[in-house]
């Protein structure tokens, strides 16, 4: 019996010495950073998350929450800040009301959300770029690198335009832009703002690389021409008209994208129309189209005409038969009597980011400014665009006519503010470089990172 006791004691002792590696448990609904960055498939999936965040508004309240910068939030902010009497603001969001009234304060929610989400997209993209060595297939690796740089260039371009003063074509762009971050997420990172010049350099470098790396066709994701099209936009904003003209020209010549037959066909299509160069995919299950939220009636899924068109905008048209002038509908219910744009009637339409119409306008403007006719003569190009919408052809061009044409063609697509700034036109009595037309660095961003300097005019 005593032997028995000794055996039991030994057995119990064995139980006493438990394995300490029992404590290394892994979650089952998530994977660790190491595992997530281990294979080319995973890197590709992280890249897709960057697209996802761009147009996501996390409707199911699963953390982290995103605001949907590219579901329309940035464009709506740009158009509210850039417009005065052409639209009316009928909504209740105080952050958007303050934008429309050019009266932002340092904790404006749009300024905060756009800033925060931008770095979330950049964090994913930088994680991808830091792990390109996982790709053994070079063409696959090039494509992923190209898409990542495309997204990064795109994001920094939007940020530098919103949070910094307009780029001065004459040079000396030492005004502050946003901090350039090129490395994966790091909790201890605290960096100051870089200059507008440096940010533009980074944007051009990223987009140029992207154009070189990306294939000519890439499904619904960014391809070479998407990168060139955004690059054309960047050069235009800088006043580099030759660069803008040539990039736009290549897109027009080689991408295969072309104007749709009618103006209406360019919008609200199932999937993308042939006019779309790049769009953010929205489906019933995924993402959100926030243009629809702010511009459409409740019956169509919107908030009921938060932004409506006024007579001042309609008066910009020289012809009542212009289809773009008539591309509207009347609100009902809470938006009773509002004139609403027909561009965003579908709740789950893809969010178009860049389309051929803009490329024509860029090439025409740059040719006109430079006195060239690369691709097509400016007058012919503008008249072709007008012709699609049954607007009468113009007899002669002026820069003002071209700029007005941009407002007729591209209204509510997020151009007003940037176009007025680069052409140094006043907005509602405020000079183009007024402090109130630049976003504040969000108070929360400065609380978190004391190195961030505030923009003039904000505390």
């Amino acid at each position, binding site marked *: 019996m005593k032997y028995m006791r000794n055996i039991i004691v030994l057995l119990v002792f064995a139980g006493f010495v438990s394995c300490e590696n029992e404590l290394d448990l892994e979650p089952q*609904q998530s994977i660790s*950073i190491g595992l997530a960055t281990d294979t080319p498939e*995973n890197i590709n999936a*992280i890249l897709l998350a960057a697209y*996802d965040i761009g147009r996501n508004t996390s409707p199911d309240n699963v953390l982290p929450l995103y605001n949907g910068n590219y579901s329309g939030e940035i464009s709506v902010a740009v158009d509210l800040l850039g417009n005065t009497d052409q639209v009316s603001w009928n909504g209740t969001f105080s952050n958007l009301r303050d934008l429309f009234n050019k009266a932002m304060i340092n904790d404006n929610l749009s300024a905060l959300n756009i800033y925060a989400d931008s770095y979330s997209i950049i964090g994913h993209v930088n994680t991808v770029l830091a792990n390109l060595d996982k790709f053994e297939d070079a063409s696959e690796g090039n494509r992923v690198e190209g898409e990542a740089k495309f997204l990064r260039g795109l994001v920094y371009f939007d940020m530098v335009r919103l949070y910094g003063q307009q780029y001065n074509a004459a040079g000396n762009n030492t005004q502050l832009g946003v901090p350039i971050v090129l490395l994966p997420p790091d909790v201890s990172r605290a960096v100051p703002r870089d200059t507008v010049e440096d940010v533009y350099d980074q944007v051009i470098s990223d987009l140029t690389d992207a154009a070189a790396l990306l294939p000519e066709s890439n499904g619904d994701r960014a391809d070479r021409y998407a990168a060139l099209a955004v690059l054309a936009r960047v050069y235009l904003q800088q006043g580099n008209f030759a660069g803008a003209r040539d990039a736009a020209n290549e897109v027009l010549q080689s991408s295969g994208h072309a104007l749709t037959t009618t103006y209406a066909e360019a919008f609200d299509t199932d999937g993308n129309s042939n006019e779309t160069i790049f769009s953010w995919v929205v489906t019933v299950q*995924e993402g959100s189209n926030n243009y629809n939220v702010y511009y459409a009636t409740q019956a169509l899924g919107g908030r009921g005409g938060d932004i409506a068109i006024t007579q001042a905008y309609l008066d910009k048209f020289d012809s009542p038969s212009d289809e773009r002038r008539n591309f509207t509908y009347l609100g009902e219910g809470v938006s009773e009597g509002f004139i609403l744009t027909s561009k965003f009637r579908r709740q789950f339409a893809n969010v178009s980011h860049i389309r051929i119409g803009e490329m024509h306008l860029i090439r025409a403007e740059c040719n006109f400014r430079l006195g060239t006719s690369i691709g097509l003569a400016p007058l012919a190009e503008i008249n072709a665009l007008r012709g699609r919408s049954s607007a009468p052809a113009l007899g002669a061009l002026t820069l003002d006519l071209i700029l007005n044409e941009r407002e007729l063609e591209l209204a509510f697509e997020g151009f007003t503010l940037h176009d007025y700034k680069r052409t140094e036109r006043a907005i509602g009595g405020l000079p183009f470089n007024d402090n109130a037309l630049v976003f504040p660095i969000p108070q929360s961003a400065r609380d*978190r990172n004391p190195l961030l300097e505030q923009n003039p005019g904000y505390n």
Partner: protein
Amino acid sequence: MNVNKLFGALIAVCCTLVFTQAQEKTITGNVVDQAGIPLPGVNIVIQGTTTGTQTDFDGNYSIIASEGQTLLFTYIGQKTESRLVDTSSIINVQMQQDAEALDEVIVVGFGTQIKRKVTDNIAKIESEQIGGIATPSFQGALIGKAPGVQITQTNGKLDGGLNIVIRGLSSVTASQQPLFVIDGIEMNNNDISSTTAPTNPLLALNPNDIASIDILKDASAAAIFGAKGTNGVVLITTKRGAQGKSTVSLDMSTSYGQPSNKRDWLNSADYITLLEEAEANSGFLASIGLTVDGLLQGFAGDQDFRDVNTDWQDFAFQDSYIQDVNISVSGGNEKTQSFISGAYTNNEGIVRGNALQRYTVRANIDHKVNDWLSLGLNSSYASTIIDRIANDNAFVTPMQAIAQIPTSPAFLSDGEINTNTLYANFLLQDKFSFRETKRRRLLGKVFAEIKLHEKLRWQTELGYDYLNQTVDRNTGRLAPFQSTNGQTFAADNGAEIISTNNYITFDTTLGEASNFSFVLGNNYTRFKNRTTSVTGDGFPTDDFRSIASAALISAGDGTFTNWAQLSYFARATYDYRGKYLFKASIRRDGSSRFGSENRYGYFPAASAGWIISEESFLSGSSTLSYLKLRGSWGINGNTPIANFGSLGLFGGASYNGESALEFTQGENPDLKWEETEQINFGIDFGFLNNRISGEIDYYKKNTEDLLFNTRVPFEASLPSHVVLQNVGSLENEGFEFSLNTTNIQNPYMTWKTNFNIAINKNKITNLPNGEDLITVRNILREGEPINSFFLIEYAGVDPANGDALYVLNTENPDGTLNKNATNDPTEAERIVAGNPNPDVIAGFSSNFNFKGIDFSFTFQGQWGGQRYNEAGKFQESGLGNGLDNQDQVIFDRRWQNPGDITDVPQARLFVNNGHSESTRYLQDADFIRLRNVALGYSLPQNVLDRLGMSRVRVYVSGLNLLTFTDYRGYDPESSDDSAISNTNSGTTFYSAPQARVYTLGLNLAF
């Protein structure tokens, strides 16, 4: 009992009488105490008679008795002595101190200690103190019984969550609840409610199975539970069988309950008057072409609104009926002892549609194999079925019926439910939907004790806790807000804890004076949880309710999670001559929830005590019969709640139908437990042979490394731009005092009372970056108590025009606050306006026994806390914020004419005149409550003997019979169950009051 036995008994009685007559004589003597000092007032009775006397001032007595009779000598604080009357006529007695109370066994975690030698602060509650209280949760029975332990049920729903706060809140984001350990095994106390309303995970415990509850309050006591000890530890010990005659107990009771409080709402006449006045003051209806009559008729269905006077409150409440049956058998022989019980309770709540049924069985078995090995098994199974009702913030919860207009009938003339009410008529939800939650819980433990040596014992335990919950919710097509043809939600949640304890205990004595005891052991605990749920929409008819019949499976979910903890612990206790007491312990905890850089934490503790009354200079004193000084220090931890909070994680997402990997959580390998250092000083005292005894304690708890999701620079690109970090600190400081007195003790009557009071002061001392953290209307601010209310200050009514006024509280240039009033609430600044937690809690209990009659009661009280009525902005708006029925106060005290001095502004229909969230709806929640009271009668021993029973007791009892408070809401303890979180507390929102319950019960044992 047969005739022969009865006859025999009669003859015996007669014989005794005859015998007594013959041998009677006078007995005299002297009674002294342990130290030889004469004891005055000692009761002396002849056993079996009512004849008795007392000693005089010099301890002398004289009594007439007969040879063969027995004299009983009783005195408080002394053991009862009995002496047989023989031929001598002098009987001198030396009484011995009865140290029973001090020799009580205290469960301390991995062992027990005699109360006299305990150097920590531990509150013990015995089964007698919790039996017979008609509440489905054992926690509810502990209210008012332990100093410094605040127990609050969320609200009057049967399944409502219970908060136990020991010595103040010690955490902001991690657990605020104590660790529950049953028979040495950690119990799963995770709330698995399928809604945001918390439920009580410990409902599965049958209160009648509990032998005792020991609450480890100070750090030194709790330190043996290391990283989970910060909030205190509740050790539950279940009943076991004892060697000897088997005892069968049967306890039955039936109860009737009703709300402990109802409020006064306007009747139709007053409502119409108020509405007409409010419309006259604002002209709102006229401006949109409506009239009061037209408006009200719209809600009256097929009746004339003038004829309707609905008391909606009466529909929300129902009569509550409770049946309880409990049977237990305990007993055993030298080798095997067992305790077996079964219980059933059927509980209909006071809120319409709320019910709970519970079946429990338990078998605790001990078996001694031989002189060195004994084994045992604890097992219990509980099945709990709960009919739940909607959260407090749902339109369809019964309590929100009080918002309905009194001129709106509940039912139409044909008996159908009126669907044209102001808000969705909850009666539709009551009739066409259900939410049934079933919980099955298995708690088991096998254990063995091996005596390795006379002084060395080995204990090994394997515990298992399985909690399964299924939820079946169905909303029929006619229920409010049901857009599809019915919806069914079915969910399954299974959580298990496997836990092993292995420890050796070594007790020895060195010489005659030094006693040592050592414990050394380890613990391994593993938790696993699996959940699934599915939602189906669209059923052919309301008769189809299972997922299989759904036209569309609209949602589904499934998760797995787990954690593990591995711990080693050691404890040494030493005393010298039972006078100088020392204890030290250390525990090393490793947890999967800690970051890789802080995988293990060490939690030391030490305490010492000095029993001064054992010293020679005090040992002779009978005035100061017991005096002990105690001091303790220790460090406890509070484990993070997130199972994988330290890991950098990626989760699933999708883009254009392709799977994506999204960064979901930033990494913090340094993540660790919150750490609390606590000191405690205490005095235990006893006067007059411990007839008056008590404890005084002072403590200070400093909690550091509080867990917060700290905000990091956006440029860091982390998910949600936060990372879980250990920053921040807070402190609790307080006094506890308890006093036990034996007011009367003699063979016929005893009367004992207990009074306890605790004062706690809580203060946040450090927050991330020193910034205020505001959650709706609670604020965390350095220097203020945790979760203080943060509101604009209501300043009453302008007598000139009836405008509601608010104090500006804007900062003046000199830093003071501008106390001028404004009628524009947006101009007023918020201030720290109150504290959701009380500063002072107290309990007062008393027990009387007179012959067979017992009477006991417990009062509880709280002071210094507030409650915010979030529904005030609807219930007390003067119809400015909707047509909700109003509190009677709004009608009675409203401003009507210039010069009226009142605090209720002029009623203005759909105009904000005073209904902004402000201190107007914040009230002191001080109260004194008669928590429970019981009156019982037990049959005397001679009758029991005749009946062959060992106990027959009938009793009536009451729960929450009286509440003394100035609080105007339903219940100063009730709070909103829809928004409860660590940082959003003290708010009530259509929250039901607790039940007032009357019980008639019977206890039988043989």
